[in-house]
């Protein structure tokens, strides 16, 4: 399956009310767009100290919502938030509970059989986080050990597959969410937590003793993040993709990147200090919704 590159739609002509279908029709009829949000995907989508959902993906989604509102010529569009988890995000997009998922979701070919994705707005890689004291550097160090990853992620799938393929004999615990997985390593139940590196940096920065932790230097997989959309809804995809592309071209995404990855963020005013990597530079220069890791190298 070849993922088609996004056709650059600069400004789609206004669609008249009769030919609206799918989500656009639903949004027009109800005056509501529902965003799927996460509670602990720092800094993409998480709760601040006043229990408000904030983050990089949330800002991008609000940009899309504005574009949808303009496209449908709605006087008022209510933006609702609906909490999702790693495991529930895909079914909730598929069954119409949420219209867009704004979190830290990897775009890959398997997922594209159930959902579709907006142009990539972040690129990360699978790495592990462990206690410095353990002196782990690469996969063979975990032979026969217990490791953890979050249920419902591409990372645990990759980990399970590599474990079977290379006969590493690791015991893999599926954790309920990122915070619990991190706690399993912290409490000594597991040797390492395999996850997207950006999330690991966020967890380490927010931990009690950031100096005790090390994030592995080896990147195992390429994970392009994007806003997730329902599959097979071409009209809705056209509007949302155009909105994201417009935000990339106008430099808005770059500004948001600086705001969330290179300045202090709530709740603990930590600066993650993540430079823009080459894969992301490439993806922002030529917006793409490809789910194939090779297209980002």
């Amino acid at each position, binding site marked *: 399956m070849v993922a088609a590159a996004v056709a650059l739609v600069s400004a789609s002509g206004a669609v008249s009310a009769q030919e609206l279908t799918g989500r656009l029709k639903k949004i027009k009829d109800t005056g509501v767009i529902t965003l799927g949000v996460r509670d602990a995907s720092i800094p993409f989508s998480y709760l601040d100290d006043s229990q408000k959902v904030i983050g990089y993906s949330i800002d991008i989604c609000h940009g899309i919502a504005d574009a949808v509102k303009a496209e449908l010529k709605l006087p008022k569009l209510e933006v609702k938030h609906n909490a999702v988890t790693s*495991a529930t995000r895909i079914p909730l997009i*598929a069954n119409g509970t949420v219209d867009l998922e704004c979190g830290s979701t990897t775009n890959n070919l398997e997922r594209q059989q159930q*959902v579709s994705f907006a142009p990539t707005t972040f690129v990360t890689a699978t790495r592990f986080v462990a206690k410095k004291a353990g002196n782990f550097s690469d996969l063979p160090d975990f032979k026969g050990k217990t490791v953890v990853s979050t249920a419902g992620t591409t990372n645990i799938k990759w980990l399970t597959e590599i474990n079977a393929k290379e006969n590493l004999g690791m015991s893999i615990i599926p954790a309920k969410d990122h915070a619990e997985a991190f706690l399993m390593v912290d*409490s000594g*139940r597991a040797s390492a937590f395999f996850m997207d590196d950006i999330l690991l940096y966020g967890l380490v920065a927010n931990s009690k003793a950031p100096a005790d932790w090390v994030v592995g230097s080896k990147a195992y997989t390429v994970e392009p993040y994007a806003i997730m959309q329902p599959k097979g809804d071409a009209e809705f995809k056209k509007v949302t993709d155009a909105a994201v592309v417009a935000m990339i071209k106008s430099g808005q995404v770059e500004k948001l990147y600086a705001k969330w990855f290179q300045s202090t963020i709530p709740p603990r005013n930590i600066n993650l200090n993540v430079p823009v990597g080459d894969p992301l530079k490439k993806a922002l220069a030529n917006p793409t919704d490809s789910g194939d890791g090779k297209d980002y190298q």
Partner: protein
Amino acid sequence: MNYNWNWGIFWQTSPDGSGTYLDTLISGLGWTLSTALSAWAIALVLGSIIGVIRTTDSRLAVGLGNAYVELFRNVPLLVQMFLWYFVLPELLPSAMGAAIKQVPPPWGAFVPAVLCLGFFTSARVAEQVRAGIQALPRGQRMAGTALGLEPAQVYRYVLLPMAFRIILPPMTSEFMNIIKNSSIALTIGLMELTGRARSMQEFSFQVFEAFTAATILYISLNVVLVFGMRWLEKRAAVPGFVGPSVSGGH
């Protein structure tokens, strides 16, 4: 609904190297059964003892029994699961805690799950047993004492045989609950049936098929259980006393 149905998914190989998706679900059902049955053994023994204690004459024993029941009945099961798994090892001496944490999966999750479910359900069983004993006419206990039986013998030969018959139907519900509640063990990484269904969803994105299969397996398991318990009720029925053979009041 924007969803691709694929019912053939069960015969595809799952990426964890354990066979097809159907095989992983069946293996999950095995873990669900082992967890539920082991926990049920704990619940039945502990619950019966605590339930009996709460009907004795000793105020201290009754108070302790009541405290036990309230402790395990008033904290959500999910929280208790978390306490057994994450908090208990931290409260023990550090060498012991470290040893517990080093227990390899799945036993590292299986044991806390069994203990948690066992204690939680034992409080509910204790409540049923107490109610069963107190549902008997007061004369039964007095008659036993009048015959010269020791208190322990009164329970053994007079009260408990009848009390357990009375509470068979609600105990069936408790037994079914423990099977369903065992799914909470997935939050501490035990791959029982619901956990397997979730992992199947994660690997294949066929969420509705995975959970349909899990639902059917749970229902089948509980239907077998209901018929087994009905048979037991019939077998244990005392003519003219409570149970399926009685028509009208007692």
